[in-house]
């Protein structure tokens, strides 16, 4: 059984003007134990809201509909108390900016021990011993002294290590990482990725890794989901996605990654046009206005997510070969 099974999940926000923003539209996916599932897409494609919806962390004006089963248990509609038994214990989430994600007003030790006090019923002293071990596990030296320090006394990379140590205290089955390395420089980013991989192997924790950096995806993910306009555009294992992508949007994303083997005269291709207005989504394919393969039916008919190979799905009407972007460049 997958650790998490999402069926027909939608996330909508009520706007002040009385409208609705459809950030996530009818998504289905699953996360297997111990795997790294990469989630890519441009800014605003619904990557974060999908997982905040699963965790019950949406903003006040947001609602999640559909189904999200964690280890067989439905999460949506669960009471606060029941949800809090799972959050922080069996599923954890770490965020983009470790400076603001850690409470600047509380010591790192306080923020870590409260997790064990809450979920393991430990007293403060026992919890502190565990936290020191956890900090050492993420390769933070001088751990006992660090417990008394506040987040601003750590560097960015160290703070993210603290976040990881804190989230891994309870050995969760699922760890959702929302762009955890975006604000870090490349060497620190690599260290964090290596650390996550090490922890996954050690504890068999499933990791959902959200990023808009395909380079990071190539490095860490087993499987990849490409999102656009709050929908899944393509889903495949990481090798297939890079070698045999079948969706025009995936192609666009791949083309906009700088590649050392292609001299593009220093220019980086980006996908022309803007992401869709989530308050007024088109009836057909959300990518249609920007797609070079667009056909008439694309604008009226939403393409279904269908398999195009073993464990390989895409949502697109286009039948012929891709590669237009390559030749156009």
């Amino acid at each position, binding site marked *: 059984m997958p650790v998490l099974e999402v069926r027909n999940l939608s996330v909508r926000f009520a706007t002040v003007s009385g409208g609705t923003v459809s950030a996530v539209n009818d998504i289905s996916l699953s996360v297997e134990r111990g795997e790294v599932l990469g989630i890519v897409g441009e800014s605003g494609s619904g990557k974060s809201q999908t997982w*905040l919806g699963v*965790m*019950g*962390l949406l*903003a*006040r004006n947001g609602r999640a509909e559909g189904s999200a089963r964690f280890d067989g248990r439905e999460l949506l509609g669960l009471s*606060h*108390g029941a*949800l*809090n*038994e*799972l*959050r*922080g*214990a069996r599923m*954890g*989430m770490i*965020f983009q*900016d470790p400076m*603001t*994600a*850690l*409470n*600047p*007003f*509380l*010591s790192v030790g306080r923020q870590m021990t*409260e*997790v064990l006090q*809450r*979920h393991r019923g430990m007293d403060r002293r026992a919890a502190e011993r565990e936290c020191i071990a956890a900090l050492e596990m993420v390769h933070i030296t001088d751990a006992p002294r660090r417990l008394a320090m*506040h987040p*601003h006394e750590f560097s960015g990379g160290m703070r993210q290590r603290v*976040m990881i140590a*804190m989230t891994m205290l309870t050995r969760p089955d699922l760890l959702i990482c929302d762009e955890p390395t975006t604000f870090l420089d490349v060497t620190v980013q690599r260290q964090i990725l290596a650390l996550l991989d090490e922890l996954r192997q050690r504890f068999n924790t499933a990791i959902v890794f959200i990023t808009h950096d395909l380079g990071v995806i190539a490095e860490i993910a087993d499987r990849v989901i490409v999102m656009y306009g709050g929908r899944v555009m393509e889903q495949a294992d990481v090798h297939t996605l890079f070698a045999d992508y079948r969706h025009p949007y995936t192609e666009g994303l791949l083309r906009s990654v700088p590649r050392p083997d292609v001299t593009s005269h220093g220019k980086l291709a980006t996908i022309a046009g803007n992401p869709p207005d989530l308050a007024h989504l088109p009836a057909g394919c959300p990518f249609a206005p920007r797609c070079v393969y667009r056909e008439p039916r694309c604008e009226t008919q939403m393409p279904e997510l269908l398999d195009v190979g073993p464990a390989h799905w895409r949502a697109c009407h286009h039948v012929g070969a891709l590669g237009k972007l390559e030749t156009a460049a």
Partner: protein
Amino acid sequence: MGALARYTARRLLGAIPTMLVIITLSFFLLRAAPGGPFEMQRALPPQVKLNLERMYHLNLPLWQQYLDYLGNILHGNFGPSFVYRSITVNQLIGQGFPVDIAIGVPALLGALLLGIPLGIVSALKQNSWLDYFPMAVAMVGISIPTFVLAPVMILVLAVMLHWLPAGGWSAGDPLYAILPAVALGLPLIAYAARVMRGSMIEVLNSPYIRTARAKGLPERTVILRHALRPAMLPMVSFLGPAVVNTITGSIVVEEIFGLPGIGRFFVDGAMNRDYTLVMGVTVLYGLLIVLFNLVADVLYGILDPRVRFQ
């Protein structure tokens, strides 16, 4: 705490130039205003006026009067009142200030003790009647000026219902302080509640609150342990302006209720060019404002671990 003590000492030293500027500016501005303490409607005989001016050293060059005044202040002596002849400014302040304490302290405390919880409840019950109702009342409290609110309260609670005295003062009788303190405090409570609501809502939307929730902490812990302290910071910054507000408000409230506080002296003194009296009250107000700003800064540093006292 060594650092905190040193910081406080340094800030107190830093307040000296501030106070000096306040004193110097008000001293010379006051003298530059037309008229003088002994120019009344019925002119005094020249010899009498000359004698009076000599008695109060007004015949000396201005710079010498200024230096003398500074010297006196250093000894805590605000000099004799020019208008209430036989009484010193120290005595006048000694009589009037307790009245202001009796209405100002409850007003400020009320603002904090009622405004803060009201603001928190509004923030937690955002967009429910527990939010709309207090905030609507607060809006009214802020926008109705004291000179409208106070007479209405007097009319209803004193004149019509006879629950409280309509004005005046009787030392030691708290009944006389109630209406003035409420008139002074209501806008402050309203203001505090709005500040608190805004900061609590902002904090509750911050990423570290999301982290706290992601950790499965119960909502009570999220608010008390993670949100309360950062949400209090704007309240601390509110303290300085609140004291200024209480002072200016007290001048109006004293006038309306006919209270013998120092705001009264301040206004009368300014009318009559009672130089020493106006200066004395100005220095006292200045000291209070400087002091509370210092208290606010120290509190801020205690609440926020990122602030270093150096």
